[in-house]
């Protein structure tokens, strides 16, 4: 494979230089961090590729498995950089700039303990954050509407869980660990109980419990903690946004994985946890209102939970998760969205939902003007 690597790596080096040349030089300040990250990563990838090509020991037969793995990692990193970070930089338009100013305003309002991500409206799916570039991808045009913008707060939760060696986020990560241990212990006790029963049905349930454990840690717990971070820093608007997405997206709100772990927990479990959180913050009336709407939606879908649903999502543990997450958010000294909070973005996003429900027929017109006001905040 030496001849293959010689040709392929040389071509990749050429490609890398082309990409460096494509990084715009006249970017607004909001994109400078992403540009620096992009250039730094490109430098590392190209250095790694040169080493694979020129280091004599990498031609040794015994090291070809390692050489192949390193080559594949470099290829994927280059592709990924090109399709995410570089794409965001070459796009960087007025719409993206407004989103970046909005995220910086949110960061200030909630006393977010990290630097804000760069935002680009390039998401092929929904909101997501590409953590190694600190790049938040929003759906195209979502910045022109208000009702899904609360999901920006959810995305801000993700870097809090994976940032290493930063004492500011340690309380949130410690709460995450404690919550994870609690759910894993509970499910393990159930699993052992079922295994001891030694019937076919109990063995199937034991297998399901094992799949649920692999889903909870780390995927589902990550989603619950990011949901709660959003709720505790924005308030009821986030719970409404979850309702809105669940109405639009469809699917079984009580979905349980059977054979393989999944990345997202059941929408109903997420809503239950959010309602616990709203009560923690003192939004009892709002929690009641949202719960009523949620039950209306569930009735409309005709969906019913599996008998074992409560073993996967025990209500007492969902409450415990909401309490631990609140301790974590407090521990980071973030601004909590208690009923008295009155920051501009926070107020506007909550007012959007209040207006939606009080005057749904004229909401679209109201929203148009509100988005313009948001652009001036």
């Amino acid at each position: 494979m030496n001849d293959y690597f010689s040709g392929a790596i040389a071509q990749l080096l050429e490609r890398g230089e082309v990409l460096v040349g494509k990084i715009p030089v006249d970017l607004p300040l909001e994109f400078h961090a992403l540009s620096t990250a992009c250039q730094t990563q490109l430098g590392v990838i190209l250095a790694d590729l040169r080493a694979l090509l020129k280091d004599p020991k990498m031609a040794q037969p015994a090291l070809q498995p390692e050489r192949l793995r390193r080559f594949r990692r470099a290829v994927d990193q280059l592709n990924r950089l090109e399709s995410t970070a570089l794409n965001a930089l070459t796009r960087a338009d007025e719409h993206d700039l407004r989103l970046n100013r909005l995220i910086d305003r949110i960061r200030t309002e909630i006393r977010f303990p990290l630097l804000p991500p760069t935002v680009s409206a390039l998401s092929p799916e929904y909101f997501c954050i590409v953590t190694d570039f600190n790049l938040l991808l929003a759906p195209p045009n979502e910045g022109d509407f208000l009702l899904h913008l609360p999901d920006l707060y959810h995305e801000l939760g993700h870097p809090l869980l994976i940032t290493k060696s930063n004492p500011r986020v340690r309380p949130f990560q410690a709460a995450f660990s404690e919550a994870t241990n609690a759910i894993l212990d509970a499910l393990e006790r159930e699993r052992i109980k079922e295994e001891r029963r030694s019937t076919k049905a109990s063995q199937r349930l034991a297998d399901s419990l094992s799949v649920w454990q692999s889903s909870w840690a780390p995927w589902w717990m990550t989603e619950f903690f990011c949901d709660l971070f959003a709720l505790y820093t924005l308030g009821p608007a986030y719970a409404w946004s979850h309702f809105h997405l669940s109405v639009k997206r469809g699917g079984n709100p009580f979905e349980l994985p059977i054979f393989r772990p999944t990345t997202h927990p059941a929408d109903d479990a997420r809503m239950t946890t959010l309602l616990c959180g709203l009560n923690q913050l003192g939004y009892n009336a709002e929690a009641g209102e949202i719960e009523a709407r949620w039950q209306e939606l569930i009735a409309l879908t005709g969906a019913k939970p599996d008998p074992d649903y409560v073993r996967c999502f025990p209500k007492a543990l969902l409450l415990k998760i909401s309490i631990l997450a609140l301790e974590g958010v407090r521990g980071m000294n973030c601004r909590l969205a208690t009923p008295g909070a009155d920051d501009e973005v926070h107020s506007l996003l909550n007012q959007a939902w209040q207006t939606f429900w009080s005057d749904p027929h004229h909401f679209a017109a109201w929203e148009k003007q509100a988005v313009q006001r948001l652009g001036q905040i």
Partner: protein
Amino acid sequence: MSDIGLFSAFYEQINEAAELLDEVLIALKTGSSQPGDESRQRLSNWLESMASVRSSDFGAQLMTMIMRDANIAPQKWQRLSDALRQGPVEVGTVEELGRLAEAMEQRRAGTMARMRGWTR
């Protein structure tokens, strides 16, 4: 967050671990590895942290999944960690680390494929 975002965090962690593992394997296979090497110590510490307590932070949970894929039982992690701290490393240990590296590569490639939407 969509799957792309969740997997990107996973991808970052797995990439880091994979590079560390290959760095140590290259040194072991070329005979230049010493117990005091920084990368070997880091790998040993990481394996020990996976073995000692049930670590429930995000990164540790992801790595647990990979260890299962490589059929490396938790009790072996400590043994691998200890082996890296001592002098010469046995051929069997190098092979086990190689299996772990392959399991990590499989998981990394699968994660990248899901991020691209190939398997959706």
